[in-house]
Structures are given as C-alpha cells and as structure tokens.
C-alpha cells in the first residue's frame, strides 16, 4: 500500500492533472568570472526544455555543461539572465543524500513536512508509512550513518516526495553509488514513480539511467549548454535494460553526445 501525499490528496480525480509542468524557453545563464582577468562563464545559452505534467524528462550531457545550473533555475534557486522559466514549485534531490546526521531516518524523511508546519506526530506517521513502502521498515529509528548508500538515497527520495512538490528535480541522484546498487536504485525509482507519478527533470551523465527512466531524453552540448538532440523513449514500462529498443536508443544517445 502506498501512502497518499498531500499533493495527491489535493489533486482532482482526473489522472495526473494535479501535477505541475516545467517550461524553459530560450534560457541563458552566465556566471561572473571566477577570478580577475578570466572570462565570464556561460553555463547555458538558448536552452529550451518542456516537461508536461507527469512526464519524466532526462537531461544528459558532458560534465560542466550546466546541468546543475539548469535544475537550480527550475527550482527557483536562481534566475536566468535571458529567457523565461515557468515551473510550479519543485523539490531538489542531489547526488549526495544530504541527510542530517543527527536525525533518524524517519525524521529526515519528515523534514519537509516539519518545515511546512505539520506537527511531529503526524509528520512521523506519514514518513514512516512511506519508508515502509520503500522497503525500509525497521530502519525508521536508524541514523543515516547506520544505513547503506542505497538506503540513504531512498530516505532522501522519501523526503523529496513528502515535500508535496509535484515537480521533482533529480541531480545525478545515484552517481555516488556503486554500479550494482545504482542499477537496483534505478529500477526501484522507476517503480516508485510508476506508483506515485510526478513531473520529473532528471539530470545525469549516465545515458543508460536516462533511457531506462525517462519518457524523453535531451542531449546537451558542452558549455554553454543547449539542446542538440531529443530522443522520445516510447518503450512501455516496466522496462528491461536488455530490450533491443532501449539498447538502440542508448547507442543513438551516445552518438549524439560524442557529435
């Protein structure tokens, strides 16, 4: 059984209309020169991205192509220099789990609820129910240091979901994990998003991760980042990595990346 988050309760019965959409149009972002005499750094230039309600859009690109900048724009943590960003409030999940070491798993998961003013008891109940769904039953009282990397990332994802934001920005969420755990977590995330749909902007340098999870994959150019290719992933879920269609798409994405 999955718990219904507040966002799901507020949503009208019609499928996925409660979810927000993301629209970036012709966005540019330049940072001041890191030191005197250096050139200003153009992170993004002329980038457009659209994620409809309930859609999972993955963004892949070489390192330093402005992927993290892109997510900060979507989350409203910074404003673009040019172009427009139109997005409902979004929650950010980073590569590092950023769990608070003094809080138990359940209290970490409940952090956003506590910020929103939910009293401790109900917040813990909601968080514990979600942790249970995520296969973390029995670890509610454990501190982050007592959990494995995959478990910590699941707690972080529970915390992100419980923020009630309908848009999730995932910034290389599994990059810090070992290869085997990473695959497990990708499959797990695909299942979790199937059960609780959200509009997702997933930034990653792992092409396979993008293909396995997303409805659409955008390939960015090196800095300043802009979209050089768009791949629609019309493969039904649940997906298998060995699916020939996915393998072919992966090859195409890698080709675009190297172009």
């Amino acid at each position: 059984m999955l718990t219904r988050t507040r966002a799901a309760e507020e949503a009208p019965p019609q499928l996925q209309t409660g979810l927000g959409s993301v629209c970036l149009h012709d966005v540019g972002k330049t940072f001041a020169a890191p030191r005197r005499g250096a050139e200003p750094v153009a992170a993004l230039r002329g980038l457009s991205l659209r994620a409809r309600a309930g859609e999972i859009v993955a963004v892949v690109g070489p390192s330093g192509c402005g992927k993290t900048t892109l997510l900060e724009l979507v989350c409203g943590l910074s404003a673009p220099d040019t172009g427009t960003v139109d997005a409902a409030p979004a929650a950010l999940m980073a590569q590092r789990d950023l769990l608070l070491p003094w809080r138990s798993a359940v209290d970490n998961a409940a952090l956003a609820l506590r910020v929103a003013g939910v009293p401790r008891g109900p917040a813990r109940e909601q968080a514990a129910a979600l942790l249970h769904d995520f296969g973390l039953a029995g670890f509610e009282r454990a501190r982050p240091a007592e959990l494995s990397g995959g478990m910590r990332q699941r707690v972080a994802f529970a915390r992100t979901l419980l923020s009630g934001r309908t848009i999730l920005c995932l910034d290389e969420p599994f990059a810090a994990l070992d290869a085997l755990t990473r695959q497990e977590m990708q499959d797990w995330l695909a299942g979790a998003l199937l059960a609780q749909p959200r509009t997702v902007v997933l930034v990653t340098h792992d092409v396979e991760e993008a293909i396995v999870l997303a409805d659409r994959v955008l390939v960015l150019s090196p800095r300043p980042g802009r979209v050089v290719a768009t791949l629609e992933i019309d493969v039904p879920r649940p997906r298998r990595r060995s699916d020939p269609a996915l393998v072919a798409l992966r090859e195409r994405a890698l080709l675009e990346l190297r172009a």
Partner: protein
Amino acid sequence: MIAAVVLLALLGGWETYARLSGIDAIVLPAPTAVAESLYDDRALLWSNFTVTAGEIGFGMLIAMALGLACAVAMHFNAMLRRALYPLLVGSQTIPIVLIAPLLVAWWGFGLTPKVAIVALICFFPIVVPTLDALDRVDGDLHKLMRTFGASRWQTFRMVEAPAAMPGVLTGAKLSVAIAAIAATLAELAASDAGLGNLMHRSIPQFQTARAFAAVLVLTAFSVLLFALLALAERRLLPWAHQPRGTAP
C-alpha cells in the same frame, strides 16, 4: 590505564627524590606530605574551593551565554561580524592580569570581578568554534531547505543550530581548560578567599604542601568538568563521533 601507570611512576620518582635528596620540604614537599595536607586541611580547602568553583561556574555560564549569542548574531549579520570580530580578537590581547586591579576598583572585592575575568577569558574560545561550525554548514543543505520553502529561522533551528553543537562543545571544553587559570589569576589580583588566594598565601607561610594540595584540588575539578563535557558530547551528539558507512 597507561595514564595511571605514568602518573604512579612520576609520583614514585617524586617521592623518592623528595625523601632521598634531602631537599627542604618547603621547596619541594613529597607527595605523601601533599596527601597529608589534603586530609588535614580539608575544611580549609573545601571552603576556598567553593569560592573558586563559583567563580568558574558563573564565569563559564556567562561566557557561554554571551559567546553563543555573539556567534549567532555574527553568523546572521555580516555587518555585525565585520564590526565585532576585530574587537573580539582585540579583547584577547588585553593583559587581563594587569587590568584586574582596575576591575576590582570598579566592582569591589567580591565575586563580580573574578566572574568577569573568567567570562572574558573563556568567551573567545567559545565564539570561534561555534561561528566556524555555523559557517561550515553545507551550502547544498541551504538550497535544500529553500526548495522546501523554509524560513531563515527554520533553517537555523533545524539545520544550522544542531550542526553547530559539536563546535559549541569544543569551545566549552577549551574554555573549561583555561577557566581555572583565569579564576586563580583573578584571585591573585585581589581577593580574600579561593584556591588561588590560598596558594598565594600558603607559600610565604612555608605551607608549600598546602599550596600543592590546593593545586591538586583545582586540577581535579578542571579534569572533572572536562570529563563531564566529554561525556555529554558522547551522549547528546553520538552522530558526531560515529564513523560513516558502518552499515549493515
């Protein structure tokens, strides 16, 4: 355990030297003589101890309160930090022993000037680690809290303040270690009671063993306070001492 063995060896050496070298007990009393004084003068030592313990206790409390308030204020306000930090550093260079008579002139012979001196000396070691710990909070955590719509105060209460606790305790431990010296120095300047006063009086009275006993009491008290803080740290902040990644 090893510390105890080293201590016993040192005491044994000291005792042997004091007995066999024929050195005057006024210059160097044997450990047994100090122990004897510890017992014989216990009422005198106790009454002076309570005075010094009060100075250290109140001084530390005031230093903690002001130090934490100062660190938080400077953390929240960059202008305040620029205005106060140089003054704080400057306050550490004041030769407190020399201005102690001045404090006595302001506040009299009672508890107040001693508490003020202890507070003044202990204040700085509390501010610096606390402020550092507040500053070192991960910038990504600030971003995370912003995406949750947290207010500045919520971020402080839920993230920064708990994260700074190890820094606060480090500061408190540093302060405890110097509080005893601060209190005895303050008593040297002007006082009629306290362990520092007792040491100061005992030596010209040729009661060297008693002076050593007073030092011993003060040292034991400092070590006890330090141990209590270390215990509190382990109990209240176990997360700060656990190695990461010892997962099932």
